[in-house]
């Protein structure tokens, strides 16, 4: 207990919390956009993995971090386009198509990695680039808070901006209204002249782009390499945090912070003799408990 309290007193802990929350936040926003259009996008896991992979490959060969990032977002868009084609045009079950794309991602990235590097585990032999971290003037000078908020990764800041962007999308924009309308009642939306197909496709593309960024964060953020299965279920976690957020982008931020909290707490506990496997399962367990608690609270209301 004392150990946990001392961890909670460290500014590094909160810094790590924000950092580990980033990919989940981006993906949660993506899952939310798709979900509001009535699609539960289980392919996020695979999309993120593909994005992480292509970010590393493209940045290694072009020696440009920006190009790597764009490739990650691009592949996110592409996978989502593919998914939307099957869901919207071919009336596939979204969950089954999602599972197919996840299968493709987990095997396909290893296949390609071996083709390019001759290894199946990680891209250690490639010299891939990272996206930068930013120090924010003024804020960095504030005691305690400055150490937490400044010096974060550029995508962490971007993800915070995107929280506002997605919130505004649903509150203010025409597209946001259309997405909500299609998600809640496709027939009614269609009768109002909204193209359900177009709206669903657009929502999926937005979710793909956001998830692409999350993938880029994983492989081009702090580690700077791709390793097989590195997403480790973050795409699935986003489905749970998205459900907890219930369509509200700000709550999505809080739910992702909850994940960040558990994950970085787990990382800190590693030094205290708690078995590794328990540390690894903490984030998943906390999210599933939080999700069930949320569902129970909603039921009682």
């Amino acid at each position, binding site marked *: 207990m004392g150990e946990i309290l001392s961890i909670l007193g460290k500014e590094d802990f909160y810094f790590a919390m924000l950092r580990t929350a980033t990919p989940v936040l981006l993906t949660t926003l993506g899952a939310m956009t798709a979900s509001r259009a009535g699609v*539960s996008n*289980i392919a996020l896991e695979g999309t993120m993995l593909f994005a992480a992979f292509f970010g590393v490959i493209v940045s290694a060969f072009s020696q440009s971090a920006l190009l790597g990032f764009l490739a990650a977002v691009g592949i996110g868009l592409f996978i989502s386009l593919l998914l939307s084609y*099957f869901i919207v*045009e*071919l*009336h*596939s*079950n979204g*969950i*089954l*198509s999602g*599972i*197919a*794309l*996840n*299968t*493709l991602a*987990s*095997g*396909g990235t*290893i*296949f390609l990695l*071996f*083709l390019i590097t001759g290894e*199946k585990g990680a891209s250690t032999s490639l010299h891939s680039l990272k996206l930068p971290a930013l120090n924010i003037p003024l804020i960095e000078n504030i005691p305690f808070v400055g150490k937490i908020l400044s010096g974060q990764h550029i995508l962490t800041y971007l993800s915070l901006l995107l929280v506002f962007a997605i919130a505004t999308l649903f509150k203010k924009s025409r597209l946001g209204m259309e997405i909500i309308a299609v998600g809640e009642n496709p027939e009614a939306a269609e009768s109002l002249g909204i193209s359900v197909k177009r709206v669903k496709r657009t929502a999926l593309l937005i979710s793909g782009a956001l998830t692409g960024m999350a993938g880029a964060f994983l492989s081009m953020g702090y580690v700077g390499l791709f390793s097989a*299965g590195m997403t*480790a*279920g973050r795409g*699935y*976690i986003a*489905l*749970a945090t998205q*459900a907890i957020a219930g369509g509200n982008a700000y709550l999505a931020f809080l739910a992702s912070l909850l994940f960040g909290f558990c994950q970085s707490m787990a990382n800190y506990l590693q030094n205290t003799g708690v*078995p590794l*496997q*328990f540390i*690894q*399962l903490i984030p*998943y*367990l906390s*999210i*599933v408990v939080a*999700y*069930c608690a949320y*569902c*129970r609270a*909603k*039921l009682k209301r």
Partner: protein
Amino acid sequence: MSSKQQFQLFRFILALGISLGISMLIIFLVSKEPWTAISYLLLGPFGSMRHFLSIFAQATPLIFTGLALSLCFKSGNFSMITDACLYISAVLTAALAIRLSLPFPLHPLVILLLAVVMGGIIGSLPALAKLYFKANELVTSLMLNYVFFYLGLFTISKYFADREAGTFASLKYAKTAVLPILVKGSKLHLGFFLALLLAVLFSILLYKTRFGYELRLSGSNPSFAKMVGISSSKVILLTQVLAGMVAGLGGAVEQMGMYQRFNWQESPSYAWDGVIIAILSRNNPALVPFSALFLAYIRVGADIMSRKSDVQNELVALIQALLILFVTAEAFLSGWEHRREVKESLAAADTALPATEHRPATASAEPVATKADLVEATEPAATKAESAEANGLVAATADLVEASGATAEKSDSVDAVKTFPEPGKEEA
């Protein structure tokens, strides 16, 4: 075989063709010896008796997970907890195979029994969360899979690890805790027949019992199931417990049949493979062994290919993904099917119009409901919904398809009636 089934079979073969075609294309793109790779992929499994028999060994766990997921999907539950059930039961099997000392037939029997119980308990968790909290079973099961995976990993590495093994492995299993090998020199063990037996039992459960009927109806028409007084909670819970039990059995069988130590440092993908098996079998337990054998054949071929040529066996993921995508794409080729149906119904109209009594569809479909009692009347409706939900198919087994032929024929003609107004429009 009705024309609808012919169409579905055609569609399945085309989906298979596309999947294999794209995979071949990739082989040609990446390989220096594409023909060698392809011939090992497709013919390798028939290269020797050992390879051929390993198809059956590899199909065994796939049958278990395929059955588990078919049952879940059939009842309309998208729980993926099969993964955790299989993994934890495998861990339990390892523990009991190492620590328990019992004589031969008793040892595996006790292990199988306890593994089934364990699988059932874990399988019930997402169902309970759904019943009590209305938590989505897909979301909870995906999270729980990770929780149980790490718990299992912890159990083995903390209590049963062999420190001298060098890599992650448990101590050796007792000699009494094995499933008998059926053909000497191969890996084909008793578990395969256990899996087959289970497929038969599940077919009976699903199509011959009252619970099976309730399960199918809950899956195909939940609101109607509720109306006729079927307890959805009972179906949700029992289905997932049963699915968990099968998965648990699969985990135990796999460990005792194929391994002497526990070395699953990563969760095997059997549960995810179960998804494609359920899809290929249209959630029909009787077809599960065929789909599993098919997938196992591709797997064995891919393994041989990756050992003997320069193409890696992860290619299987591509084949699997493409198969799922195309087989579940309901509207895939639908334009083509629609035109064909229109043509057929026009032809049918021409021949049938003079003598109305020869047109069973319009006349017989409705009145059935007035006579029979409510529950019975829904039987054809349910099967129709199933055949609509079903996507394409592996009807490699003609006899099984024949069995459902009658109902399918009926839904066919109903469809034909539906398309009647269309032709006029198209010609105009």
